[in-house]
Every structure is written in C-alpha cells, then in structure tokens.
C-alpha cells in the first residue's frame, strides 16, 4: 500500500513486519526516529518483541549477539559514533556467524563532531564480515530490510547485515513508499529457525578461541559466506521482485549507461541527484551514465567490471575517504575491478559531513573527469584551507 512517510518510519514499519523477537538499540541522531517508532510499536502491542533499552551501543549489539545465538530474530539500528563504539562486537557478530540485521542511518565520524551525513561510518567497517546494502531512496531502504533478513538467515550465508541509508537525507525525508502488508512480508520472510542455537536440549559452545592452527580457516569460511551471499541475493532479490514487483537481484543498477562515454559510479541517495544531472547532460548531448552500487559487501567486482567495460572514463564519487590513500573506498574497489583495463578511473571525495551535493557539482565532476583530473577532494573552500 502506497503511503507518504518519513524514511525512519518506513524502515521501522518494515522492521515491524519482519517480526524480530528482540530489538536492542541506543538512541543516536539521526537514527532516533526508527527506534522511537519501534518502542511505540512494542508499547502498543503491534510488535511482539522485547525492546532492550541498553545503556550504550556496545551493549546494544552485544544483546543482539546473545539473543541471536539463543535463536531469535534480532534487530538494531545505529550510526556513526555509535557504530564505532560497537566496532568490537561488529567483528564478533560476523565471526560468530549471527544473522543480525542493523540499520545504519549513515553519518560522518568525529572529530570534529558532525551529526550530518556521509558514509564514513559503515564504510570504515567494511572488513568485518557484514553484508552491506546501500539504499538510494526510502522505498529501497524499506525493501532492503526484508531482503537483508532473508539473505542473512540463509543457511549458506549466516552473516549479519547492514542496511545503510543516508542520515537526514533519507531518514528524515518524507517520500511515497509502497509498504508490504504483514501477509506479504510473511509470505517472503519466514520465522527464523536456526539449526544451531544455545539450547539446553543440545548443548553447544559458541565463541571459543582459536589457535593459529584454526583461526585462518575461520576467516576463510566467513569470506566464503560472503561469496555465497551473492547467489542468495540474486535468488531472493528476484523472488522479492516476482512477489512485489521490485526486483533486487542485481548488485548494481545501470542508468543511461549503455552508450555512455563517461560513467559515474556512486552509492546511496546522491544517485537521485546524479540521475537528474545525467538527464540534463544527456539533453545537452553529453554521453554520461551512472552505475549505482547497491551491494558493497559482497563487492560485485565482476558486475562492475562488465558494466564499465565499454566506457571511456570512470568518475567514482565517494562520501567517505580512506585517509592516506588515493581516495574513497568505492574508488579503490572500482579501480580493483578495472585492473588490467586501460579505462581511466578517477575518484572524487565529496559531500563529507553533510555538505550538499548539487546537480552542478555532478556536472563539474564530469568535466574534471573528461580533462583527466581527479583523485581529489571535490569542492574544497580555498579560504578555509
């Protein structure tokens, strides 16, 4: 059913429809509207969950670890500083192969303190073993939660998942969202029933320590699960499309890319602006297209290489930066995907700490890329440096 709703409320509603038994979260801007809505659902009996009001984010995710290991579907949400306080548990949850789903309302990392959007938070934890989904709009932010649970809980995967959507830009924006009914959600996402859990009837030890004789293979197996998640995303993304008309089987989305000479690669809400800018550039005769990455982990290296194989140049836009390297995480990954090809890949860092990204910025970046200028922070205020 189509409704005009705030991004956070749409996400909370999707989470409610996923029927988590345990919700554990700590409030942090701009995630608060999600957890307030969930608390409201629990208080009014429309979500039959135990909402644990923990004292910080480390405990939020730790409680999810316990509840998930005990066999319940669990949910948390956070962002930025909160995610970093959780960081130790983030690795732990993936290593223990617990299919926790957590929304990240993406926000910049301090210092300096910033409550505004970029993607430095989740991107900085890309090596922990979680699946990473990045939404362009609130419809996708909503739908990806159903897909995330389905993929995470698949016995071939058993990995936790981030569903990332841009803080404020999406979380606090009202958009039309086609929300599933409970019957529809139940037809796609079935009750969680893991084969292994903490259970007195079948005692097992979880989270043992591993010597050098064993540890290496644990990381390998977790990486294999990432690889297997690709097939699960394709399968369940297609199933979602068949049932509800929105297909999420692809890791990437191409927009006017077929005959493009300049390809822009980006993730998240800025892709809406990029598409509008591309339409205007196309009207002006410029052959520009977009490759939007929706799944960052597992990284779709082959799909990216294939989608960009025909273009003359690539401009990768990052709302994050790997300080001390040549740029942002997406640019580094795309360059890896394009290794051995002669197509130049240029990276542009922009929109950090919530700075607006406008259509004219996209057009300017395309101009820079055509000139072969890149691998830089875009839009710096010279007077501040």
């Amino acid at each position, binding site marked *: 059913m189509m409704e005009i709703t705030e991004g956070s409320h749409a996400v909370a509603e999707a989470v409610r429809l996923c029927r988590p*038994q345990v919700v*554990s979260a700590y409030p942090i801007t701009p995630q608060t509207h999600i957890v307030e809505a969930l608390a409201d659902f629990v208080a009014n009996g429309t979500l039959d969950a135990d909402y*644990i009001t*923990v004292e910080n984010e480390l405990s939020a995710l*730790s409680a999810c*670890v316990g509840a998930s290991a005990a066999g319940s579907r669990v949910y948390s949400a956070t962002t930025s500083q909160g995610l970093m306080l959780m960081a130790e548990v983030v690795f732990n949850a993936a290593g223990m192969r617990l299919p926790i789903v957590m929304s990240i309302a993406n926000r910049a990392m301090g210092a300096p303190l910033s409550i505004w959007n970029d993607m430095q938070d989740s991107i900085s934890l890309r090596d922990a073993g979680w699946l990473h989904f990045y939404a362009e709009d609130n419809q996708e932010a909503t739908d990806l939660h159903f897909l995330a649970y389905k993929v995470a809980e698949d016995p071939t995967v058993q990995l936790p998942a981030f569903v990332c959507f841009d803080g404020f830009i999406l979380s606090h924006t009202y958009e039309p969202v086609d929300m599933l009914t409970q019957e529809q959600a139940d037809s796609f996402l079935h009750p969680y029933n893991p084969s292994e859990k903490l259970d007195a009837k079948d005692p097992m*030890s979880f989270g043992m320590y591993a010597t050098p004789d064993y540890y290496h293979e644990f990381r390998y197996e977790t990486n294999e699960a990432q690889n297997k998640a690709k097939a699960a995303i394709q399968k369940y993304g297609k199933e979602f499309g068949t049932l509800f008309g929105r297909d999420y089987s692809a890791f990437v989305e191409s927009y006017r890319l077929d005959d493009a000479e300049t390809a822009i690669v980006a993730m998240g809400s800025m892709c809406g602006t990029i598409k509008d800018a591309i339409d205007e550039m196309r009207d002006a005769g410029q052959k520009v297209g977009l490759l939007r990455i929706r799944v960052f982990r597992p990284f779709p290296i082959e799909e990216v290489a294939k989608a960009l194989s025909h273009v003359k140049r690539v401009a990768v836009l990052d709302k994050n930066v790997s300080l001390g390297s040549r740029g942002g995480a997406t640019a580094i990954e795309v360059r890896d995907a394009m290794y051995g090809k002669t197509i130049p890949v240029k990276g542009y860092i922009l929109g950090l700490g919530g700075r607006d990204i406008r259509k004219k910025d996209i057009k300017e970046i395309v101009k820079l890329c055509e000139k072969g200028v890149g691998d830089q922070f875009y839009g710096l205020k010279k007077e501040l440096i």
Partner: protein
Amino acid sequence: MAEKKTCDLFDCGHRACGGCGAALSARLVTEAAGPETIVVASTGCMEVFSTPYPETAWKVPWIHSLFENAAAVASGIEAALKKQGRKEKVVIMAGDGATFDIGMICISGAFERGHDFTYICYDNEAYMNTGIQRSGATPYDASTTTSPAGKVSFGNKRPKKDMPAILAAHGAPYVATASIAYPADLMQKVQKAINTPGPCYVQVHAPCCTGWGFEGEQTIAIAKLAIETGLWVNFEMVDGTVTKVKKVVRKPVTEYLKTQKRFRHLFKPKLQEAEIAHIQAIADKNAEKYGIDIKVPPKKE
C-alpha cells in the same frame, strides 16, 4: 564415584593449572545450576582454559563473545528465552577484570534493567590470563606485574573495589560472596541466586596458584585463611541488607599473607610492620562492618 562427579557439567581434561580455584568454581557453579542453564562467559583465563577450539569442557550451552560484554549478551539471551517461552536459566561466569573493570558499564546497565540472570564473578584478584596484572579487585599491597613491589613501592596501592555494594545499590535482590573453600555454602548461594527473579550477583573467592605464588595443593587452605583472617568475608545480602555472615575466630592477617609470593615483599628482606598493620586494619574494618568475630571467652588463670 568422586571422579565421575567431577566430570559432570564442567568436564575434566580442561587446561587449567593444577589447583586452579577458578576451575573449581566452574565445577561447583555448574553442579549447583544444573543442566537447564546457559552459561555466558567473558574473555579470561577460564574461557581460554576451557574452550580451545575444537574442544570444550562445558556440557551446558555456553557462549563467549567479548571481554566486557557478558552482562549485555546475557540480557539478550534472557530476552530471547522469554519471547520463545523457554525456561533455561542464564548464568554469567566472568573474572574480576571483566567484572570490576572493563565490564562495569555493561553490568551496571544490565542490573539497572533488571534482567533475570545470575552473575558469578570468579575473583582471583588480578588479570591472570594476560600475566597477572592488577585489577580493581587486587588487594592492597599485592605485587602484580603492573603493580610490582619495588624499592619505592609495596605493590598495589589501592584496596579492593566493593563490587557487591555497588550491585546492591543497583537494587539487585540477591548479592552474595562465597569461597571455593566452602563448596556447600557456594552451591547454596548459586542456587538461591538462580531461583531469585532479577539480576543476582555472587562473587566467589578463587585463589590462583600461579598468580598469587603458592603450590597448587594449598588452594583450599589459602582460601580458608582469607576468611579466617577477615580479608575475605562470606555474606549474603537480600534486597540490600546483609542477612547472613560467616563468623570466625580471627587469625592475624600475616597467617594469610605469608603463604603467597605476591605478599613476600612484606616479609623479606625485612618485615614491613607499617604495611602489615595497614592490612590488619582492613581486616579489622571488615570484621567490624560485617560482625564476623566469634568472641572467645578469656581463659581463667
């Protein structure tokens, strides 16, 4: 028969030192708790000696996540069991470093929220797993690798943190201290904690032969001396009020101190009378606070 019993829910064949007080506490706690128990461990000596993958000593469901978060993990398990309509009891087994220091925030949050679990701290009074560094549970003047006795130091400069009082102040309905030297008392307290709804705490004195410096066969004797000198008090608190105390005919603290290398510097190269007097004062204060002294009538001449 006795051997069979030791290999019940906490199995033999683990890798603790001979004479390990913590291992004994695990055996007694699981025996008291029974098979319908989920054990949550913190990182620490017990976690490492009992679960080197792919072996485990635990015959009850057991989980270890991190050093500091056992109380939060237990919170999640308790919530999940409630939602699933399951009846297993949740018991945390964590060391003093995990409890007094790094896990303090998680513990405070979990006790304030009132989850139904039992938190057992096996207290061996330092970070033994990492090589005997001081913790908030290390007693006054104990020499550890981060509070070493030296030419200008008598070792650990601070007294033990009063963790039971802190948790009682959180409104914990049942708080107790126990010792591996008194197994029946320990097991009764564990059972009482488990059967009391809400977050309960039992702090178990568990001497560490390696960390404290004594021979493994002395573990029980040393644990007894701690109580007999008043340096460890076994008590029960119900709703914040002390309801039961182990009374003793007190011995001087030197009887306890001289058995352990961690206090050796108080006796050699020369007797440190002022420091020993300070420790005796700690014991005297304990005795007064909890009323542990059994008054022996003076002998008639």
